[in-house]
């Protein structure tokens, strides 16, 4: 290896000063190794030009305006589903509790007025689940999208490029299964709601009992106070007379 290798590279890549360039050219005239290297490296450099880079569209779009997404589109689907379920449960529980409480409160007020010690306890009535109604709703939905459960089965050719529908019996069976599945799910939800509302109603009854006891105690105090006032008034009148 020639000691002028680095200077030969400077010469090859046009990084040599004019004076160095002349000196290297003189060296190349007498050094076969360096002269062969320069000639061979020039061919390699020409060959390297054959390696092109495929054209590419710009990949840089960091300043593009961010598309406006409605806030409800930014909420994950599972969160929306959970929120809808929670709203449904709370709404159902609230309306049931409200109706139960309102009916019980009327009875309780009358009872307290007449006899403060007696407070009616009302058990929460379990809502009646109507599987038929749910099935009817499902059928309405299917009808709305054009599902014909009563149409006649039409044979589907195996060679047909697009088998249009299942046979009618299969569709009916699937529909029945879907109705049963939905009905069972609704039944379970109603049972859970009923259990929850029963607990709420029992707690409310306990509250009412405590309120009734307080009212009874207060009524006694009022009676005692009234008697005391009446006694004072009587004593004052007797002194005046």
């Amino acid at each position, binding site marked *: 290896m020639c000691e002028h290798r680095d200077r030969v590279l400077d010469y090859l890549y046009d*990084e040599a000063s004019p004076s160095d360039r002349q000196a290297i050219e003189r060296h190349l005239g007498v050094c076969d190794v360096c002269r062969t290297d320069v000639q061979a490296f020039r061919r390699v450099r020409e060959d390297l030009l*054959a390696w092109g*880079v*495929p054209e590419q569209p*710009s990949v840089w779009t960091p300043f593009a305006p961010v598309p406006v997404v409605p806030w409800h589109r930014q909420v994950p689907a599972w969160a929306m589903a959970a929120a809808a379920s929670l709203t449904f449960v709370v709404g159902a529980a609230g309306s049931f509790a409200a109706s139960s409480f309102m009916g019980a409160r009327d009875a309780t007020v009358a009872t307290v007025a007449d006899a403060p010690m007696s407070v009616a306890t009302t058990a929460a009535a379990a809502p009646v689940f109507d599987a038929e109604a749910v099935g009817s709703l499902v059928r309405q939905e299917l009808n709305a999208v054009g599902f014909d459960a009563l149409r006649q089965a039409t044979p589907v050719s195996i060679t047909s490029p697009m088998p249009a529908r299942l046979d009618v019996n299969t569709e009916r069976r699937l529909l029945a299964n879907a109705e049963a599945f939905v009905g069972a799910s609704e039944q379970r939800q109603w049972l859970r709601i009923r259990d929850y509302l029963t607990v709420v109603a029992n707690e409310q009854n306990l509250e009412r009992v405590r309120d009734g006891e307080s009212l009874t105690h207060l009524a006694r105090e009022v009676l005692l106070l009234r008697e005391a006032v009446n006694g004072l008034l009587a004593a004052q009148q007797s002194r005046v007379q």
Partner: protein
Amino acid sequence: MTSDEELVTRATAGDQDAFSQLVTRWERPIYALAYRTLGREEEARDVVQDAFLRAYRGLKGFKGEAKFSSWLYRITLNLCRDWMRKERRAPLAQVPEGVDPIDLADQQAAPTESVEDLVARREMSAAVQLAMADLPEEQRTAIMLKEYHGLTFQEIAEMLDCPLSTVKTRLYQGLSVLRRRLERQQAESASLRRAHWESTTL
């Protein structure tokens, strides 16, 4: 034309248009560097996007001690190195098999270029890719920065954080290996062409 330094100053002050001009100016060379380093178009695109994002975020830390392009090249090389280390993959030579006339026509550099020239250039491109992919990373990087990006020896040394003599050694060794492989490949191609010519004419 506005200089890189001026655009960098404006971009650092929050001028997004200035940075977009820098991207427009340097996207193609950066992509070429990433593509030739990795040998994969998709990954090269990802690296380009990531390199400019890093550059944009790091503009305030860029003190201008080196040229903006050198800084960008260094970011790109580091990202390519990270990718190869993470994926434990070597550079890929995407050498197409067979000759597609439509593809060839698309690669035609000039209307006067003959089909024979196109085929020869395509073969040479494939040979170069294969030979470059086999080089050690240091030699390949030095050759790429010198041959395809025209950096000076000093700039390469600063970018790779190594002595000037090391850069020249890597380049010399890399060119020597390429020379042997390309000469061998060209000899094999010539032999194949001669055999094909003899089988079709005799």
